[in-house]
């Protein structure tokens, strides 16, 4: 097969490309230029954007003896990932830009371009496994290395995208083994640190960066009954579940700390309450996709597992489609869910699909805020 290896400059994508070469594919390495400012040189791997990462990817391709190119996706990336990230914050939601990048850039813009140019597949260094069921349908499963499993961020892939994807690291037992393999293959990125930050936020401070983009405006901090407790400098500076940085003069009636429960960007209002009120019973969204074959029936409630964060745990839940909306009810109240996040549905280890969360329903009614006071 003609395979395009997306090479970020990190160890995972370098080893993935190496394995694709070893499997006998005709491999071409491509680094995605996602920033318009190629001068930014940062230490450590941020996954993209930097000259250093591009050079690391180039060195890896050179060791593997494959052609290497840098393709410019900066415009698409700005429009579909960065601008949307800002718009989501502006709308009071907490987006995951890496998922958008997979959805719109790596497995859309890049994949489409690769197919148009005569490639059969795009290969990445994600830790996830592609399997085929008895009927020959492709299924995306969790990686064998559960600690590094990245199936969550691939939950946005559709059947068509899976057909042209290749994840050579899927069956790897651990990241340490990948590093050892990189070392053995003479890849200088073997000991490059992992990236955790959002690649387009240079200093790693999301709140500062967002405030810089959206500006500040004073608004109210209220409780769920609507009582004004204090003020803030801009609702986009908060995320649901946040506890620090709430400048509220008076203590809560129950004496316990208060958390951000909801952000209402239209009125620039931040709603706070007790931690218990953060727990949600239900989440729903209209922007959902199926990863591979769609479930046979979506009218009836079916048991699944749901994961709401890249490094979170999957918890028991049930789902159904109600009036065009994918509704997920968790069996136990769940903390740490905010609109904008992605809920990925699993059947065992198989990724079933995902939705961007539009709405949540609290597990605790508003009038119970003072319980225990």
């Amino acid at each position, binding site marked *: 097969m003609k395979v395009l290896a997306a090479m970020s400059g990190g160890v995972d994508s370098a080893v993935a490309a190496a394995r694709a070469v070893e499997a006998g594919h005709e491999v071409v390495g491509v680094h995605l230029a996602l920033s318009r400012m*190629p001068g930014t040189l940062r230490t450590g791997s941020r996954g993209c954007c930097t000259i250093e990462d*591009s050079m690391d990817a*180039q060195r890896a391709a050179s060791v593997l003896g494959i052609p290497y190119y*840098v*393709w410019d996706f900066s415009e*698409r990336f700005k429009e579909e990932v960065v601008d949307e990230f800002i718009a989501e914050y502006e709308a009071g939601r907490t987006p995951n830009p890496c998922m958008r990048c997979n959805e719109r850039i790596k497995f859309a*813009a890049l994949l489409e371009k690769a197919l148009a*140019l005569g490639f059969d597949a795009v290969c990445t260094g994600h830790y996830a496994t592609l399997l085929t069921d008895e009927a020959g349908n492709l299924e995306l499963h969790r990686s064998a290395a559960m600690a590094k499993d990245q199936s969550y961020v691939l939950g946005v892939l559709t059947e068509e995208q899976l057909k042209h994807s290749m994840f050579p690291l899927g069956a790897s037992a651990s990241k340490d083994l990948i590093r050892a393999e990189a070392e053995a293959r003479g890849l200088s990125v073997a000991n490059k640190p992992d990236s955790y930050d959002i690649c387009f936020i240079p200093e790693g401070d999301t709140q500062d960066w967002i405030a810089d983009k959206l500006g500040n405006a004073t608004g109210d901090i209220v409780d769920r009954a609507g009582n004004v407790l204090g003020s803030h400098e801009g609702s986009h500076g908060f995320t649901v579940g946040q506890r620090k940085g709430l400048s509220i003069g008076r203590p809560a009636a129950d004496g316990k700390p208060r958390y951000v429960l909801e952000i209402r960007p239209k009125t620039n209002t931040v709603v706070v309450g007790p931690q218990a009120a953060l727990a949600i019973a239900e989440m729903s969204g209209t922007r959902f996709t199926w990863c591979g074959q769609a479930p046979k029936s979506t009218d009836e409630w079916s048991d699944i597992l749901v994961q709401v964060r890249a490094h979170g745990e999957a918890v028991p839940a049930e789902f159904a489609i109600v009036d065009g909306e994918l509704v997920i009810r968790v069996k136990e109240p769940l903390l740490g869910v905010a609109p904008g996040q992605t809920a990925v549905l699993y059947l065992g280890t198989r990724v079933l699909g995902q939705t961007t969360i539009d709405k949540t329903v609290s597990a605790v009614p508003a009038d119970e805020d003072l319980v225990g006071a």
Partner: protein
Amino acid sequence: MPVYLDHAATSPMRPAVWEAYSQALLSVGNPSSVHKFGQESRNLLESARESIASAIGANRSEIIFTSGGTESNNLAIKGLFWNRNSIDSNRNIILTAGTEHHAALDPSYWLEDNQGAKVQLVPVDERGVLDLDWLETYLKEFNESVALGSFMWANNETGVISDIPTISRMLAKYGIPAHSDAVAAFGHIPIDFEASQLATLAVSAHKLGGPVGVGALLVGRSVKLASLVHGGGQERGMRSGTMNSAGVTAFAAAVAETLANQPEEELRLARLSQLLIDGILEIVPEAQLSRGSAPGLSSNVHFTFPGCSADSLIFLLDAAGFSVSAGSACTAGVNRPSHVLLAMGRSEDEATGAMRVTLGYTSTEADIEGFLKAFPAAHELAKRAGLPSK
């Protein structure tokens, strides 16, 4: 064996140059030493200086050897600006054009950002031709504030040639020194430094099949420049550092061989270019020759292809065995829309579809025929892949 069609990025070292270079590398001695070894090394250096000077219509002492085109442009633009501005602080305007190479444009903007200079761009038309009527009007009004003018002799991307002697005379009328970046032009068209009335002129060895890392700035004998590199006072005190005898020997060999049959070679390449241009237009009638009808280097063929991205074209042609470029080679290896095309009024989408084929002494008719056979498939796939902005 892939076909090399990127001579403007760098031209393969000529066998005669390699011979002269490798032999000179074995000679011992610092040209500034007084002993026999030093004198031998000095002889190499000065012979090279003399031979390059006579090839370019300059006096021996007007050749300042440097590390290449970028350094030469920096030395000229910063050196002239500092010198002029220190004598008359009102003279802070640098006249230049948006189509200049980064090696000339960036020093000008650096002076604007850090040293109180003001960059004034002379307008260019859609072919990249400078508006000399505008320049004349501007000079009439503002000549007393102008520190220098800096205009390339031929554009490294589109190949368009500017009438440097005319511009130089227009500036000289007001006593304004003119610099020209002739890195792309030298060796391809006749250049006479003395007749040009330029204050300074930048040239580089590796564009002629000489080694990378060797170049020269021609500095008129009466011209004063502030130096960028201080030290032992070599090269008229304008460029300190131990002189590179072997490098300039190779440079001189490249110049001698290039100029030995320059008029015939220019005609030969013009014929090959025309074959290529006709062939491309037959395959893609909507393709646009970037410099249009303007006079240009016979070695440069620069097109834009509507609806295509250079990323795709360059990749596909490379895979088919033809090494071409989108424009100037850039540090990160990423093809951004060319600033040259943007300065010529192209939109970002138009500029994204740029392809530059540059011919040189190794180019043959078979290269062009092969390229034209591979091009239709590459163009079709690239068009299918579309633009990055879609």
